[in-house]
C-alpha cells in the first residue's frame, strides 16, 4: 500500500475575480522511502496541492471540491480539525520556502522546536531541549548547544533553513513535504541542504515530496518526478525515464530550452517554448498547453486529453493526445 495516495484532487478558489480551478484532477502516490519531485512553473498549483494534503488552505476562499487524500489508507479529508492537527504534528510535516515567514521572530529557534516536541511527543522541557540540540547536530548546525538560544534573525538563510528541516524532522514524520526548500539559498548552501536531505532520507527512510521549479534540483534528489501545468499533472515518470525520454511536449520543451552548466556555450538561441501560461480565470479549451504547443492539432483544441499510463510502461504517465516520439 502506498503511504500517500492523492486521488482526483480538485481544489478551487472563489475570489473577487471569479472561480479559479487551481488544482484540477491531480492523482499520484508516494511509497515509503520514496522522494517525489513535484515541478512546474509559478502558479501551476504545486503549493495548493501540498496545502490541500496538509489541509492548511484558507477555506474560503479555498475549497477542496472533489477528491480523496489517502494517508496509510485513511482519507485525510474525512478527519476532524483536531485529528488533522495531530497528523500534521506527528506523521506529515512541511518545510516552507521562506523560513523567515514560518519562524516566529520573537522566540528563539530552540524554543520553537521544543514547543513542538512538548505538545506532540509529551516531552518535558529538559528532554525537549536535549532532543532539539541533537536535531541541530543532525542537520549540521555548528555549536548546537549555543545556537538553540539564537533568534531567527541572528542566523543566516542557510542556517534558518536547517532549523526548518530540524523542526520538520522533530517528530520523525513518515512524510516530509518540502516546498521550494532551497530556492532562496545560494548554490553552495543549496548543495549543503540537499545533501542533508539525502542523508536524512537514507537514515530514516522518510518519504519526501520535494516541490520546486528547478529541474536540476529534482534530477539530483527525486526517485519519481511529477510535472504540473495549469493545475494538472501532465507527466509522471521514474526520474531517469523522465529526463531520458520525456513524452509530454511541455516537459520535452522545457528540458530542451534550459541552459545547462554541463554543456559548452553555443551560438544558437535557446529553443524556448513560446507564449505564456494561460490566465487562471480564463482557461483555453481542450488541452491547456495547446496555445504554446508545437505539436497541437485540431483534436487538442477541441478535447482535453486524459492523464493515462503510456502503452508498454508501468510507471510513465502522460496527458497528451500526441506524446513526443523518440
Amino acid at each position, binding site marked *: 500500500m502506498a503511504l500517500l495516495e492523492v486521488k482526483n484532487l480538485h481544489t478551487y478558489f472563489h475570489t473577487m475575480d471569479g472561480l479559479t480551478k487551481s488544482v484540477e484532477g491531480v492523482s499520484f502516490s508516494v511509497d515509503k522511502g520514496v522522494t517525489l519531485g513535484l515541478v512546474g*512553473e*509559478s502558479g501551476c498549483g504545486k503549493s495548493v496541492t501540498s496545502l490541500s494534503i496538509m489541509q492548511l488552505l484558507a477555506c474560503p476562499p479555498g475549497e477542496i471540491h472533489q477528491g480523496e487524500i489517502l494517508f496509510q489508507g485513511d482519507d485525510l479529508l474525512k478527519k476532524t480539525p483536531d485529528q488533522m492537527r495531530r497528523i500534521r504534528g506527528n506523521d506529515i510535516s512541511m518545510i516552507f520556502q521562506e523560513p523567515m515567514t514560518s519562524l516566529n521572530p520573537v522566540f528563539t529557534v530552540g524554543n520553537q522546536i521544543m514547543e513542538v516536541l512538548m505538545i506532540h511527543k509529551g516531552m518535558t522541557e529538559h528532554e525537549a531541549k536535549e532532543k532539539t540540540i541533537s536535531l541541530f547536530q543532525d542537520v549540521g548546525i555548528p555549536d548546537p548547544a549555543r545556537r538553540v538560544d539564537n533568534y531567527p534573525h541572528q542566523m*543566516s*538563510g*542557510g*542556517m534558518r533553513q536547517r532549523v526548518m528541516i530540524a523542526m520538520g524532522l522533530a517528530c520523525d514524520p513518515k512524510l516530509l513535504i518540502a516546498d521550494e526548500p532551497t530556492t532562496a539559498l*545560494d*548554490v*553552495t*548552501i*543549496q*548543495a*549543503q541542504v*540537499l*545533501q542533508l536531505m*539525502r542523508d536524512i532520507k537514507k537514515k530514516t527512510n522518510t518519504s519526501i515530496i520535494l516541490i520546486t*521549479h*528547478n*529541474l*536540476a*534540483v529534482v*534530477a*539530483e534528489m527525486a526517485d519519481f518526478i511529477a510535472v504540473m501545468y495549469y493545475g494538472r499533472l501532465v507527466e509522471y515518470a521514474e*526520474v*531517469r525515464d523522465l*529526463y*531520458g525520454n520525456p513524452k509530454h511536449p511541455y516537459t520535452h*520543451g*522545457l*528540458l530542451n*530550452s*534550459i*541552459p*545547462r*552548466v*554541463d*554543456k*559548452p*556555450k553555443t551560438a544558437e*538561441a*535557446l*529553443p*524556448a*517554448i*513560446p507564449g*505564456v*501560461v494561460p490566465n487562471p480565470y480564463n482557461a483555453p479549451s481542450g488541452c491547456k498547453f495547446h496555445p*504554446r504547443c508545437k505539436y497541437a492539432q485540431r483534436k487538442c483544441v477541441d478535447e482535453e486529453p486524459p492523464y493515462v499510463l503510456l502503452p508498454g510502461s508501468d510507471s510513465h504517465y502522460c496527458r497528451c493526445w500526441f506524446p513526443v516520439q523518440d
Partner: protein
Amino acid sequence: MSKKNIQSENASRNIPIITEEDVNEALPTYKPDALVACHKLRKYFPIHGGLLGRKIADVKAVDEITFQIRQGETHALVGESGSGKTTAAKTLIRLYDATSGDIFLRNFKTQAMDNITHARGANLRALRSEMQIVFQDPSGSLNPRIPVGDIIEEPLVVHGVKSRKERLERVVNIMEIVGLRAEYLKRYSHEFSGGQRQRIGIARALVLNPKFIVCDEAVSALDVSIQSQIINLLQDLQGKFNLTYLFIAHDLAVVRHMSDTIGVMYLGRLVESAPNDVLFNKPSHPYTQALLNAVPVPDPTIDRNKAIIMGDIPSPINPPSGCRFRTRCPKVMDICKEVSPPTKEIEPDHFIACHLF
C-alpha cells in the same frame, strides 16, 4: 598616474580623459577593444554607530577589483550573495561613487578610454544615457501608477528629447523590438506577466540607445519557460545593437550560456576571471571549483557524490585576514592566513588570486 584634462570632442561628455599611454599604465593588460574597464576599484560602505553616530567600521563590499569588458561581449560576475556583485556594477556605472580606483569608458568620438570615475553634472548625465541597468524584480522597479508607455518614455524626457512625437516614436519602436505590442502603451505594469514586465524594464533601459547594460539578476525571478525567452531576447538585442553586457546571475547554467568572460567574486574580491570555456572546463581557484561543484545538473545519470564546500560566507565588515576564502578552503596553507594572495595572470586572460598559483 597623471591625468591630463583634454577636452573631449564629444560635446555631450566633456569629461577629463587620459591618453592611451596612461591607460596602459593603469591597466597593464588593457585591451584596445575594451568598452569599459575598472582598475583597483573599491567601494566601502561606512557603518555608523554609538551615540554620536560616528563611523565605526566599513563594509568592504568591493575591494580592489580590476577587469575590463570588450565591446559587444558579455562579462559575467558570479559569487554567493553578499560577495559584492551588485555594488561592483553600480559603482562601475556611477550609481555609487567609488571609494578609490578608476573607471574607464570608451569614447566613440575620440576612440579614447575616458576616465569617468569623477565625472559630474552634465557629463554624468551624458554617461547615464550610455550605461543602463536592468534589475531582477521587474515589478519592484516599475511604478504601478504610471502607464507603461510613460515608464519607457521617462528617460527620454529626462535626457531632453524635446519633441513629443519623436519620443513616442522611439517608445513604440523599442516596444516592438523587445516584443511588446504598441497597444499596451496605456496599460499599467501590474496588468502584465513577469516576463512582459521584464521586457518593459529592458525597453526602458534600451530607449536611450546605451552601449553598456548591466543585467543584475535580470532573468533570475522569471519562470523557467519565460527565462529562456528573455535570455534569447537579450542575446538578440546584443547582436542587433552591438551591446556590451555586465551580466550578474546566481544561476551558473545561465552564465555559461550567456557570457564570454566571467569574474568570480568572494567577499568583495575578484578571485578568478577567465574566458567562458576556461572557467567552466578548468576552474582553478578553490572557490570557483567549489561553486561549480555545487551547481545541480538536470541529468539524473550523473554522479551525485560531489565534494561540497561547508560553511557560510563570512561578514564583509571583518573579513578573514590573508586570503578571504581561507576559512572555507579545503586547500588552505599557513601562508593563506598571513598574506593576501596577489592576482596573477596564469595564462592569457586567465587571472587568479590564490597562493597555490
